[in-house]
Structures are given as C-alpha cells and as structure tokens.
C-alpha cells in the first residue's frame, strides 16, 4: 500500500496519451490539432498561407512544378485537462488489504503530480448521491492546489450512498474532450453505470475499478464471516467453504466482465486498482488501450 506521502516523494509518473488531438493555443505536452511551434513535422504548406521565411522547405519548393514556395509546418503541443471523478459513497470506507480511500488518495496525488508536471490541468469531482462541492477542484495547473485537493480525497468523509452525482458531474464536464479517470468500485445498478458512461462518452474515460484481493482471491477457504454492508443493505452471515468461495470469485469475475461489456462502447477497458497503487501498471494500461 502506498500512502500519499510515499507517492509524493517518489514513484513513477502516470504516462498517458489522449486519444484525440487537443486544440487550443496554449502550449502543452500532447500532440495538438493546431500547427505551430517546434514540435514534430506535420506538413508543408504554401508560403502564402504561412509566411514564415525561417521554415521554407527548399526540397519541397524545388520539387514543385508550379514553382510555389513551401513552408514546413510543425505540430503544436497542447495541454489536456485530466479529471479525477471519485466515488465518495459509503462503500469507499471499505478497508481490506488496503484502505480504499488511501488508495484513491494515492492515485489522485500521483495523477495530480503527473498532470501538472507536464502542464496539464488537473481537476477533481467527488460524487455520492450528489456532487460534493466541498471537494470540487476545477481543472488547474497550479501544482500545490492540485496536490492538496487530491490529498484531501484521502480524508474525505464518505457517508452517502448511491452514485447519481456522476450524472451531474458529466453535465459539468461538457465541452472540450477531457481525459477522465472514473474512480469507483462500480457497485452501482447497471443502468446507472451505463447512463454515466453514456453521459461521458465524448471524453476519453478510463474506469478505475477499485478492488481488493480480500474480496475475491484472498477469501479464506473455511470460516464464518458476518458481512456488514457499508451502504446500509444489512448484515449477512456467510459460512465460507471451498464451493462457496469458488462461486463468490466467479460472481465477482462475472461482475467485472459485465462492467467491461457495459463500458466498451464508451470508454477504455477498466483498470483494476487493487491493494496497492502502481503508477507504472496504470501507464502500461493507458498506453496499450
């Protein structure tokens, strides 16, 4: 388990590539839609269109049978906004091998650092049944503010149930595409999951599925356990035995599979964040999907 402090001190950055070309004239770290600046070669254009004598492309100009003068154009580097949409319902108080809130805090701090370091904005929205205004952070490139807001998530109180606030968050995020990390255990009704993903479909969404190995692979073979629902769905006594454990794990796997199916049309496949936050694993996930 990596606490927020550890993540601040060291640990790899989260490396991400937006799926779209961000526009805008601010200078950032990602390949932008606009041309300009000193980035990668993009295309030669007529000198009349871009009268920049410093970048005249001699080779292209000589090759032109109509004797036009060409200028090299380079890609602009543009920033993107990254947003962490964090589920703050009561189930986030779960504490298995790792404290779910610590895990969220570690993830958000790491993301805030990684984003602000390369000039991207970082914003936070916490949601339970409603949007939590007290934890709202508009996308900012201010490093300290982003760090503080991310660290605050780790201590946020999680009392409410439900996740309907995400729909409001989606409305608030309307506009240019953004890079969104949806951090939750996704123990919502399937209809709501689909609705939220549909509302965020214009953005580049990565679901971060909070899991805990105590909840599936780490289940003991034998034993008596009384489950107490954090969201108030009551208590239940469970007599664990190998057959029940198999059924339980199969059920969890099926749930993840269902989540994957639901979000496939709208978002990247879910990233499973269990026990320990590993920035490199998330980077790999983001680069390969």
């Amino acid at each position, binding site marked *: 388990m990596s606490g927020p402090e550890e993540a601040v001190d060291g640990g790899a950055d989260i490396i991400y590539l937006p799926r779209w070309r961000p526009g805008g004239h601010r200078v950032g770290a990602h390949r932008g839609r606009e041309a300009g600046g000193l980035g990668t070669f993009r295309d030669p254009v007529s000198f009349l269109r871009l009268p920049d004598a410093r970048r005249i492309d001699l080779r292209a100009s000589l090759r032109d049978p109509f004797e036009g003068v060409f200028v090299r154009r380079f890609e602009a580097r543009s920033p993107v906004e990254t947003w962490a949409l964090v589920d703050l319902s009561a189930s986030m108080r779960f504490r*298995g091998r790792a404290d779910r809130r610590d895990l969220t805090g570690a993830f958000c701090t790491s993301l805030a650092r990684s984003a602000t370091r390369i000039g991207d904005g970082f914003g936070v929205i916490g949601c339970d049944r409603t949007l939590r205004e007290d934890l709202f952070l508009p996308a900012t490139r201010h490093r300290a503010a982003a760090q503080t807001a991310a660290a605050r998530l780790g201590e946020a109180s999680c009392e409410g149930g439900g996740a309907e606030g995400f729909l409001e968050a989606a409305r608030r995020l309307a506009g240019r595409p953004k890079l969104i990390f949806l951090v939750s255990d996704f123990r919502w009704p399937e209809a709501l999951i689909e609705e939220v993903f549909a509302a965020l479909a214009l953005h580049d969404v990565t679901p971060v599925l909070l899991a805990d190995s105590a909840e599936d692979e780490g289940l003991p073979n034998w034993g008596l*356990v009384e489950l107490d629902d954090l969201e108030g769905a*009551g208590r239940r006594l469970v007599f664990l035995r190998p057959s029940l454990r198999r059924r339980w794990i199969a059920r969890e796997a099926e749930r993840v599979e269902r989540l994957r199916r639901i979000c496939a049309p709208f978002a990247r496949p879910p990233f499973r964040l269990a026990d320990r936050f590993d920035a490199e694993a998330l980077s790999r996930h983001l680069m390969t999907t």
Partner: protein
Amino acid sequence: MTPLLASLGAATPWLLWLLPLAGLPLLLSVTRRSPVASVAAAPEDPVSSGLRIALTAAGMLAIGGLVLALAGPYRAGERVTRTGIGAQISMLIDRSGSMNETFAGRQPSGAEESKAMASRRILRDFVGERAHDQFAVTAFSTAPMLVVPMTDRHDAVRAAIAAIDRPGLDYTNVARGLGMALSQFGAGAPGVSRALLLVSDGAAVIDPRIQAQLRAEFTKVQPNLYWLFLRTKGSPSIYDKPAGEDTPQAAPERHLDLFFKSLGVPYRAFEAEGADAVAGAVRQIEALERDPIPYTEERPRRNLTGWAYGLAAFGLLLLVLAKLAETDFLRRPVRERDAAAAGPARATPKKAAA
C-alpha cells in the same frame, strides 16, 4: 400441556423478569462484523442463512437457559393416576396360636417350618410380582389388628408379611377380622378388582348378628373372596360333614364355608395341606385377579436447574464453535503481514549502504 405448565415453578421467580434478555441475539450477533462494500457480492447460500438462524437460536437458548437456571426451575410434585394390571388385595391373616404349628400339628423342630412361616414365604413372593397391586394386611386372633392399610408400597407390605410368623396367640375370631379386612378397601374407584384373601388354619363360629352385618358389608364392597385354609393333618376338611350333629359349633370350618358361599360374592376356597399346596393356591389367585386398576403414582418435586444449565451450555457450545470458526477475512494473513514487515527492514540497510 396446561397441567404440565401449571406444575412448573421457579424458586426465585423475579429473576424470570430477565428473560426478555434472551431476545438480545435477535438484535446483536455473536460474530464479529466485517464491513464490506456490498453484501450482494456474496452469493446466496441457504446453508449460511440456516446457520444464522441456528446461531441466533443458540444465543437465545444460552441467555434464556442461564436466566432460567438462575431462577431455579422445578416441576412441582404431584399425584398421577394411571391404569395398570392388578387388584386391591386385602389379606386377612390368622395369628392364632395354632399357626405356629407345622402342617402336621406339631411344634416345628429343625428344618420343619410352621404354617405361619410357610405362608410368610409364599405370600412374600406373591407381593410385588405385579407392580400395581395394592395390598392391605390385617391380622386377627381374638381381636383384629390393622397391620398395613391399603397401599402400593410393596416394601411395607412385605415387611408386614415378614412379621406374621411371630408367635401367634389366643384364638381365632374370624368375624371381627373379616370386618376390618373389608373396611380396608375404602371407597375406591369403580371397576377395581378387589380380593379378600383369608389365610387361616381354622374357623370359628360367627355370631348370627354379626353375620348380617358382614353380609351387608360384603354386598357393599363386592370383593372376590379367597379362603386359603391351611389344614392341619387329621383335622376336618371344609367339606367334611361331621359325624354327629351338623352345627356351626361342631364343624366351624364347614359352616364358615357355607356362610361364604351364601354371601353372593365370587368365592373360592383352597384347602392346603402343605407348603406346595399353599403355593399352588396363591398362584391360582394371582392368575384370577387380572383386571385393570387405576393407581396413583407420587411424583416428587423435580429440580430442573440442571436441564436449564444443560440447555444454556449447549447454546454456549454452539456459540463457542461459531466463534472458533470465525475468520477475519479482511485482515491480511499472518504470513503476508510478516513478509511485509520484514521487507522494508531488509531494504533499509541497503539504502543506508548506498
């Protein structure tokens, strides 16, 4: 069910006000709670829900049993009327001096046994062969003696019979003895088989006035009458007609027999001239008296505290087993925790060295 409930009691009943505590397991559970994100993650399992009910019941049983045991429950003593096979038998035993003699009419010497001793031996076996017989013992010589009233305590009856070979005395006054033996039956339940067993070695004249009284008594009680006549060798039989005048004075046995026959109750006479004959007669009587008899059984007050503690212990045992079977699955297994603790410790010196 109601009479059973009514017979239950408690030594310190106010403690029973604590019984509602037995409902606590409905609100609280014995197992440690593990907060999880969603209980719906666990698959439906009938075994588990059955176990939950069982554990709740065990908790209620444990608390309820302890409260009950502290209150000191008991079942009050009572008389239970049951029906068995048997009869009310009133024994009327001759204690006149002649009973001390052998069947040969001599004083017993050596291995010989007197009539009293023989009848004692045989009657003692008779008593207690059937559990639900009731016996009364009356002895008579000149005056009747109430030895044991009608009872089903066979030990007492056997003790009374064991005493009949004490040397007898005086004469045979059968009339008053019969009166007392009849009075032993008491009111009694209807339909009970009653038997009057007269053991004597002689007879006496019954006064005609007393005869009328006895007749009335016999009609009222309606017992089966058995006369076990221990006949001394050479003495006249019941059925012998005397050579001379046929008067009660000349042949009292014969006339007593006639009197019994005239009573209008079932009557049998057994003439025994030895111990074997006596035993045979007793067996016959036993075989004849086989009717249902209501008998009362005295049940003493019974302390149920042990049962209550037993129930509580059973409930507690289940709870302890559940506690032992409990796992805290959210905690990391010990092995992993140790490994995690050892990991940084090993890493630190390396860093320092670098």
